[in-house]
């Protein structure tokens, strides 16, 4: 199956600053792909490169089978794009904007438009410039979802929105999810954790890893080894052990390549005098904090970006 988005060694510089540094990424068809990273990590630049708003200095990207550098005009019939920075035709009313946009899209679904207007409680007669930020985002969502795009790209769509508006938008998005691929960026892990099927982590313009949420959750564990007597930190640690620390008889680390059974055996061999082992599942937030603090992206050798499959994505959605 062809991926909806594929990038090869994509690089973008602004003067001496490298905003996107050789990113190779695959977004499987039907997935909800969350691109996460701190502010300034390169998420927005990457999305703008995909949308042909910016042009890469090196590398290439394909979006819906087309070279991103040629993306334009009617290709956007199949793409919905919403960004926190995007300007709207502020002089128009919500109704006028929807009326105007309807003429551009052969696949515009008037029933869905009405449903979204109702669901988002959009004031049709008010000008966009008189709407709150949340309402503007809802209007942007409605205008980008009503034509049932094959790909929806959202750049920090929930940034600065109150939880109620955010949930409404996510709800609207999830309703469309079965028939579309969604790529969204966020610096807030909690807001995307609940509904994303895939995740990619950007740091300083580099993609540290990209994989399915389920496999990510499965391979990270917060490991605690309780020893019989205090012991120093082992001299040479495996690359997959992050944030290792020892305190008295307790040795703790984050295992980034946990495998049920084999990991326990490996630890039992390494720490024969250990009294106890505990393996706690981690939240996405804990995982990213561990990665970010360690700064050992290269050590995340088990990146599974190419193993992502639509089946897993659908499973997550379900």
């Amino acid at each position, binding site marked *: 199956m062809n991926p909806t988005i594929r990038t090869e060694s994509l690089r973008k510089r602004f003067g001496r600053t490298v905003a996107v540094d050789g990113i190779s990424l695959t977004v499987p068809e039907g997935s909800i792909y969350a691109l996460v990273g701190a502010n300034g990590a390169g998420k927005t630049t990457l999305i703008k490169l995909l949308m042909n708003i910016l042009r890469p200095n090196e590398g290439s990207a394909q979006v819906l089978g087309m070279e991103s550098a040629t993306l334009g*005009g*009617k290709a*956007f019939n199949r*793409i919905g794009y919403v960004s926190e*920075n995007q*300007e709207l035709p502020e*002089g128009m009313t919500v109704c006028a904007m929807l009326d105007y946009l309807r003429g551009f*899209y052969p696949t515009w679904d008037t029933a869905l438009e009405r449903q979204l207007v109702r669901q988002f409680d959009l004031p049709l007669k008010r000008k966009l410039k008189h709407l709150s930020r949340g309402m503007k985002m809802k209007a942007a969502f409605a205008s980008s979802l009503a034509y049932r795009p094959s790909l929806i790209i959202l750049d920090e769509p929930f940034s600065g929105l109150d939880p109620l508006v955010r949930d409404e938008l996510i709800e609207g998005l999830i309703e469309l999810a079965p028939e579309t691929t969604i790529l969204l960026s966020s610096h807030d892990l909690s807001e995307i954790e609940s509904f994303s099927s895939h995740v990619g982590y950007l740091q300083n313009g580099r993609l540290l890893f990209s994989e399915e949420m389920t496999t990510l959750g499965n391979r990270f564990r917060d490991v605690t080894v309780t020893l019989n007597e205090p012991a120093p930190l082992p001299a040479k640690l495996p690359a997959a052990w992050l944030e290792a620390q020892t305190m008295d008889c307790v040795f703790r680390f984050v295992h980034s390549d946990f495998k049920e059974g084999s990991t326990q055996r490996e630890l039992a061999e390494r720490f024969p005098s250990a009294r106890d082992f505990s393996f706690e599942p981690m939240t996405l937030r804990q995982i990213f904090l561990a990665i970010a603090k360690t700064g050992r992206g290269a050590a995340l050798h088990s990146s599974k970006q190419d193993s992502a499959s639509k089946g897993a994505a659908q499973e997550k959605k379900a």
Partner: protein
Amino acid sequence: MNQALHIFLKDARRFWVEIAVQLAITFGFASIGASLWTQAADSHAQLLAALAPPLAFLVLVGWWLLITRVIQAERLVGDTQFWITRPYVWSSLMSAKGLFLLAFICLPFFIAQAILLAVAGFAPQHYIPGLLFNLLLYTAVLILPLTALATVTSSFARMTLTLLGILLVFIAFLIAITTMIVANGDFSSIAGGTAGPICFAIAVADCLTAIVLQYALRRVWLARGVLALLPVLLAAVTYGAGKYDQAQVDKLYPAAQDDAPIQFTYAPWTKGSETLRFSASSHARIPIEFQLAETGVAEGYAILPDVVRAEVTAADGSRWDSGWQGEFEGLKLLPGENHLNTRVNMPIADYWKFQSRPLTVHLTLGISQAQAGRTTAVPLPNGKFAVAEFGACSPTTAWTPQPGQISALHCIAPLRQPQLTYVTTRWADGPCSTGPVGPDAGVGGHAWVGSLDRAPSELNIAPVTELHLDISNAIAYEEKGKQRSRSLCPGTPIVFTQFNRVGRMQTSLDIQGFYLPKVIEANGRISVTE
């Protein structure tokens, strides 16, 4: 629905207020213009005349606002615009904007001009090509450059600042051109010059390239670069065309054979006392005047000196060539008019080499020969009258010599100057109670108006050109410096004779023992005594 039309309708709905204001200004200007040409010269007309220039300016300002607003409704600069991730086809977007400008700027302007022509008494259907040419001129000179600027700027404020910057560059460009003209001579009289049409074509092509680049690729800096290149190109073309025109004069003006239509001889008739003063600089040019007598202009012909060239040789063999220069200020020679002044400008560095030495000057003049054609004689009526192939005139009354007497003629022509026309009449030296002035009575008066080289239309926001008919001998000079205005009596024939160019040629003469004028350079000023 066609995407271009869809965008056009959106813009028309969105900017209806701006459109309405623009239309009101355009047609307000048209109605004032119409009133000006149909009403008598009373205080009301004076008020209208005072309102016309600001309204004409407002029309242009309105264009600027409307163009900026509509182009930047889908801004082409920046990366946060709503439309760039929507299925806009660039050619449709560009077409929609073009259609908008056509519908709400060009078409109203065209209609307003047609109305003005009709009100002025000229049937607009006869001037459609001229009206279209005028529209083309305005599109090239204003609409296209404003559109190009709007495509490479992100907001109205930036557009305004850019315009101000361009204005400064334009002034610098004009200064440079003026300097170039001073340095190399003015070639505008040489068959209209080559630079104008080429500059026009380059400006249009450059603006169109920037616009298409922006819509097709949104390569802002590339498009800005293309626009920034324009002044450089124009300067280069102006300079190159000047040189080219110099080289073309010999082709345009072949040497006259033995039967030259005019003969010149050097005949200084005044002793110089006139002093010319100007700032001293290393680029200063000293005017060298030659007073000539001419003979041989045949009846029914006129001679128009266009360009002059002086080759100066000193006794020691040193030589200076002025190149072709045009310094005649619209001089026309008829049979019997046998004196003329011509001059060339000499760089001051060359002047110092040749001063106070007897010189031999080989003076060559490039002339146009014009032949009298259609002649129309009109007994002066009290009101407006039409002159075929010329325009329309109306007598202007004044308080002197007596209230209500006709003191001048006010003429208008559709779209452009008329063909070169010689206007003759007879002034009454006394009251008009005795009736029209006969051909042998009163004092003769004449005036030249129009041009041998005419474009289909002149760049003028009003489609009617007002003609300055400065009829000679309008003032009688009496004893003790007193002056008295003469008048034109109703019924006196006004004769309009049109002239057409029948040829161009060179004629030359040699002047022996010529001395350059006296020049004194002191306190940063140069004084030239002829």
